[in-house]
């Protein structure tokens, strides 16, 4: 695939962002490759209705 880029004028007045969070990138500039990956899960069993049991503590082994 041939990909020709002609960068002419680009000028932005104001940018308002409330949060840039969890491995996000706010880039003003060029980049060659950007790879962002995110995964999260909230399976049914992680909705716990009942007495508050603390999560398992950090295991000793690092």
């Amino acid at each position, binding site marked *: *695939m*041939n*990909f*020709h*880029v*002609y*960068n*002419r*004028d*680009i*000028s*932005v*007045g*104001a*940018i*308002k*962002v*409330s*949060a*840039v*969070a*969890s*491995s*996000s*990138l*706010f*880039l*003003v*500039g*060029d*980049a*060659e*490759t*950007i*790879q*962002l*990956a*995110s*995964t*999260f*899960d*909230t399976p049914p069993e*992680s*909705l*716990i*209705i*009942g*007495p*508050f049991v*603390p*999560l*398992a*503590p*950090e*295991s000793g082994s690092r």
Partner: protein
Amino acid sequence: MLQRTASVNNVEMDSLAIASVFQIGDSNLIQGFSRAIAVQREVELFFDNEGNFANYPIFSEPLPLIPISETINMSRQNINPFIKVGNIDIIGVSSSSIVHLGNTNHVTLETRVKHIRQLSPKK
């Protein structure tokens, strides 16, 4: 190959936390990783030693990034070599995030979050 220049008049940022970077200037390689266990509890109850990443498969399962197999030959002409931005207003930057003014080459960022909700039974 001549690169473009980012010209920013004003940046306002309230908070920059938890392994985050505010980069002014070029960089070559960016690699970031963050993982979190997000527990929402209906009652303010805090324990000191809690949460073990090893218990949850989400933190160890492979996260496949689709490889770019197609050959892409890209040519670039910077007729206007400036990226002009007037005003940037960011409230919060957190958990291995990057605000980058300038050019870079390769960026790889990954985040893994396990959400847990604990509600009290008395309704």
